[in-house]
């Protein structure tokens, strides 16, 4: 299993890469000088400092001799997080096509069933209530222009 140390190393490395990219981009934008500050000035110094600190943090994690602990409680539970993320991404992609009502029903059903492992009766009640109440709140009460989708509601 992925250890917390490895996860921290990966995350800090990503921050380091980000800071290098920002520093290069800011340099390209022109730094100017203290008399006439360019658009890249502030971000360049921020990114440079962040790069130095990320490098220091990365070195500290690499040198650390602390006991190795797993990053996640179990892969089985991590799958729940991954499912939640995938369902959210996929349904957002089709939000405009499906429309608010279908999206709400599919979203609730998928999460309650796949991640929450809820029974069908309870699932149906919660899905129906959430869809109706949120439709009433956002569309009727607040008059927010939510996608109507192929159903046209």
């Amino acid at each position: 299993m992925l250890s917390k140390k490895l996860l921290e190393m990966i995350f800090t490395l990503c921050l380091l890469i980000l800071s290098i990219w920002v520093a290069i981009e800011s340099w390209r934008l022109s730094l100017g000088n203290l008399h006439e500050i360019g658009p890249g000035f502030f971000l360049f110094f921020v990114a440079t400092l962040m790069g130095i600190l990320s490098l220091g943090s990365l070195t500290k994690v690499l040198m650390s001799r602390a006991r190795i602990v797993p990053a996640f409680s179990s892969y089985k539970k991590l799958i729940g997080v991954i499912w939640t993320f995938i369902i959210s991404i996929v349904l957002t992609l089709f939000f405009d096509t499906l429309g608010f009502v279908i999206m709400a029903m599919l979203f609730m059903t998928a999460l309650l069933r796949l991640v929450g492992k809820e029974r069908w009766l309870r699932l149906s009640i919660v899905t129906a209530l959430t869809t109706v109440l949120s439709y009433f709140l956002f569309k009727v009460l607040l008059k927010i222009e939510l996608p109507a989708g192929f159903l046209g509601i």
Partner: protein
Amino acid sequence: MEAFSHLISGFFIVLQPLNILFCFVGVFVGTLTGVLPGFGPLGAMCMLFPLTFRFPPITGLILLAGIYYGAMYGGSTTSILVNIPGETASVVTCLDGYQMAKKGFAGPALGIAAFGSFIAGTMGLIILMLVAPPLAEFALKFGPPEYFAVMFAGLTIISYLARGSMVKAWIMILLGFILGGVGRDLFTGAERLTLGALVLQEGLDLAPIAMGIFGLGEIFINIEESTTVGELLTNKIKGLLPTLKQWKDSIGAMMRGSVLGFFLGIIPGGGAVIASFASYALEKKLSKHPELFGQGAIQGLAGPESANNSATAGAFVPLLSLGIPSNAVMGILVGALMVQGIQPGPLLISGHPDIFWGIIASMYIGNAMLLGLNLPMIPMWVRLLRVPYSILFPIILFLCIIGVYAINLRSADIFIMLFFGVIGYVMRKTDFEGAPLLLAFILGPMLEKTFRQSMAMSDGELSIFFTRPISGVLVGIAFLSILTSMLAFIRPKVRGVREESDKTEIE
């Protein structure tokens, strides 16, 4: 006298039907988020943030402020009955509150927490009323260097107060600056870090980032760690009204907690969490029986509960008088003001007295509402705690998605929120804090603007920050806090090296 007449006009504003309804909705949702573990006031505020666009500014602010201080009330219920803090400021309440409940005093514990919160909230408001207007008047003398210095000192203090590593806190502050810098440059109009994407040209919005890091990050953590509510001490809730002796034992702690909490609430990054811990430490030090703390001492409950509520009023001081948010929650309020075209700052009180006095009056009314919500409705909140998280999280997540979509009516914001949700989850796993990032994201553009204005004023001389008295003092404080934390970081290592060399010499 002038303040009193302003306050009366504030009450007239709040007592309008729409405002009073939003005040109730705010404190109700706030209590709900406080009661439910794993969902903080920040997430709820972000969720209802789009709602504020459709109403007058004061109505939206009454709602958002209500959520904030309502959460402080609600958090104590879960701490006392389940030994799980409903939100972070209630961690200390668990220590003696839960012990009191276990000994059969759940009713008085809930009562003291509610009355303490009410008294502290009201006292905090009185001090806020007295402190904010003169401070705003004083702040009118501030120029860009002073504003830069206030924000710089604030961010330094935030990193100093960070719960974990200071280096990690600074990395998060710098990341916040970078995210805040995305979009068109204010002075030249040049596109910065937009990757050519249209949605990034106007910069990143606060709500998708805040909701992602705090709302979704928390949801992902709870799904993985399967937060379960422990044993509910519901059979022992009786006698919510404290006895005369309980009042006598706790009133001093309430007063001390109120004053301490208010001033700690003003400090950037301080807020309710630090206030509650500081009050607990103070009460333990002053007590003739410190050994009773952690075993159900009533002062250990009354002090911190009062302090965390008073701190919420204190946190409004820098926002309403200087226009600078002292924590992430205040950042959302800045966003709500700016969306409505109101510039937070020293001119807010004189330019928009209805906003300032309306918020103050709404907090008085909200505090009274909370007392009514928290005491008679305890059984309802307890029943809510029994709803499994597997049912709650899809509803919360769905409301987050629709809430963030409603701001600009574009799916791109949902993707941004989901992306930052994953970042927030990894940050929690790797002990990087989200609050410094969010505050730096809000303050970053202001900091850059004031820095560039200062440089234009001084013709590129950095000495402008040191030669002006106010900015000089503030920058000095900032450097001092950096220096002391660096010393604290180096000293143990030097000591460790010395001990090693001593050992070698002996050998």
